[in-house]
């Protein structure tokens, strides 16, 4: 009968490293997944306001990239509440929750114009 060997330092190290690596990978995946979700949500604005909120230069449409987060959020909420008049945006913003509006505002504020 062989004596059970205690875990070697090497084996333990690899085990912990693997565990940490798995943790790191799943955290990165979760973060990438979140990024994908928010990008896809923000992409619902792009048909009119340009890819990643960069409107075609010279077009009569507001670019959203780099806009102040709180300004953007307050304007979108005002469209939603009907306190800022609009031709279309009040109809669009009523389709988004306050949480989605916040997420969109944070996203565009972090992009360079």
């Amino acid at each position, binding site marked *: 009968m062989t004596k059970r060997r205690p875990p070697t330092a090497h084996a333990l190290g690899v085990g912990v490293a693997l565990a940490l690596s798995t943790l790191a990978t799943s955290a990165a995946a979760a973060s990438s997944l979140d990024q994908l979700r928010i990008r896809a949500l923000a992409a619902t604005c792009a048909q009119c306001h340009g890819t990643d909120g960069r409107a075609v230069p010279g077009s009569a449409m507001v670019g959203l990239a780099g806009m102040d987060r709180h300004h953007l959020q307050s304007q979108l909420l005002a469209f939603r509440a009907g306190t800022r008049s609009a*031709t279309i945006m009040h109809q669009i913003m009523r389709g988004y929750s306050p949480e989605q509006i916040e997420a969109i505002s944070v996203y565009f504020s972090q992009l360079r114009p």
Partner: protein
Amino acid sequence: MQRRTIIKGLGAAGAAATLGGCASVGGTASKGRVVVVGGGWGGTTAAKYTRLFSANTVDVTLVEPNRQFVSCPISNLVLGGMRTMADITHSYDGLVRNHGVRLVHDTVTVVDRGRKEVRLAGGQTLKYDKLVLSPGIDFMWDHTPGLQTANAAGQVLHAWRPGAETAALRQQLETMPDGGTYAITIPLAPYRCPPGPYERACTVAAYLRRHKPRSKVLVIDENPDVTSKPGLFKAAWRDLYPNMVEYRPLHRVVSVDGATRTVNFEVHEPVRADVLNVLPAMRAGRLAVDTGLANANDRWCHTHFLTFESTAASDIHVLGDAIQIAPGMPKSGHMANSHAKVAAAAIISMFNGWPVNPHPKLTNVCFSFLDETHAVHIASVHEYNTAERTFRTVAGSGGVSDMRNDLQGIHTWAWAQNIWSDMLT
């Protein structure tokens, strides 16, 4: 000793993670192969956003026979003489240059679902992990005896795909005598671009009012009423084109005689026109039908709305006008663009083994010109309903214009510039 080994191990894991990250950003490690068929509103968006959303880690090949993109939206302005074919014709180069999409100008002849490959008319075979079909519409010529012959002879055009027919129909309008009649017939919904036929009546009437003011415009509809923005269109016909535009609902076309430019109806008297513009009944693009994906009434393609994957075949996603629509979902270019973004995100999630977004969203805006400058719109926001497994418009969202104005005309052109860019550059 133990401690040092752990740190060493951590270092190795960290280095590996960093390398992995770099490889992803650089696009050297391919996560999968996507072949997109059809360079229209859905296909171009799917190609671009699959690259964007994956940080260029997914290989994308776009197959499209045409060398240039021609826009169906705005093409009614070409018919009215307000814009030219050059204004609605754009390059595909941005997809290649800016996003690394591989562009193949060819036609897919066969989709081999078993081998997961498509074969091209030019002889090439492309393997895919995910196939995205955005095949647009096909015309059901058999529904209307005489129509296909008349169309082939250039006597009766539809111009419901942009390009040569758009230019040809414009030419027919230019040579029509003052005092002549332009008639457009509209098939039963669903068809591509619900407000399109009524907008066309307006832009053609705007041209005729200015250049051939004794002419008539007949809008002959199989539907019981104008299918989109009825109040706004009828007000425009009444106010802007009194005694010129006439609307006739509930007219089912049964046949067409190209030589005399006559259209026959099930019940009503035949109509002879100087320019006869018959919109054929429509179904999903031919490749979708041939691939066995048109499982909704043998016309449209059912999809799982979280991913736009066909219900008839796994790993084939169908976008745009070809799909069986959800309630309140129009067959529009804007909507096809929206489909494509949801599908692109879903495909990337599937490649990564991530859960697919359970709450995808779609937007739609359809603008319509009523004359040279005034426009109206209809807008909607759609969210996935888990219980019903379909998209529904968000309660309280969306709506139509209060009135026509030139601000919306300006917005229409800005929308076109931005959505073309969102697809192509």
